């Protein structure tokens, strides 16, 4: 670092939180969470190939309270990353950059992710508990 006493540019704590900031950092956070979650897919497939005992162990872990909490979290992370990912793909075409559109599409990603998570888990729970 240079010794000069130049002022630093304002960082996060200076700004009032806006929804676009939330959707931006959540896309990263859910991406990291999902990368970890892919290891559950790996575990499921490997245990299914390994035999009934290994697969039942996988099912018991998924059905445990901690397993259910993690699965609900991963479900939301997946749907959030999906909704906001589609939003980013649309923005990559150059569309939707006017501030009102940008704010509206941010809310659509967030609300859409919760609605989809709710639908999936309503189905899971009415079908009689997970796994």
């Amino acid at each position: 670092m240079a010794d000069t006493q130049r002022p630093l540019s304002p960082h996060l704590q200076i700004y009032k939180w806006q929804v676009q900031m939330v959707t931006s950092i959540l896309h990263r956070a859910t991406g990291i969470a999902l990368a970890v979650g892919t290891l559950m897919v790996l575990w499921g497939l490997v245990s299914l190939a390994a035999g009934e005992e290994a697969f039942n162990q996988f099912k018991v872990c998924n059905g445990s309270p901690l397993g259910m909490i993690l699965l609900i979290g991963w479900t939301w992370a997946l749907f959030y990353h999906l909704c906001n990912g589609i939003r980013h793909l649309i923005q990559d075409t150059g569309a939707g950059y006017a501030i009102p559109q940008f704010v509206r599409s941010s809310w659509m990603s967030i609300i859409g992710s919760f609605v989809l998570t709710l639908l999936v888990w309503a189905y899971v729970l009415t079908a009689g508990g997970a796994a």
Partner: protein
Amino acid sequence: MSTNTKDLRNPLKRARGLGSAQFGVSHWWTQRVTAAALIVLALWFVTLVLGLLHADYATARAAVAKPWNAVLLIAFVVTVFWHAVLGLQVVIEDYVHTRWKEIVLLVAIKFIAVLSVLASTLAVLRIALGA
């Protein structure tokens, strides 16, 4: 850039092949293409899992063994780990500022992803081929 006035080469000529000028676009583009594929594959995967909610071992195995499911599962696993590596790579490059730690992490996620893809693919093939 260099202030060496004796260097008559165009700045672009000196920049080519260095840093992101080498593979920046391909990284960006591959991330989008895998994202587009995952919109379909991830939704398909969720419906597959939901359809197997209370399935016993034999039913789950039979579902994975179906040729289309096996093909799409392998496609999903390859694409999801590829997309995860591309995303995690950017996160690591942004936040890890010690060079050796950055390199170790960048290589580690690639090793983990490749091993995970190979293990998942082998698992699907074992199930599909009845091994």
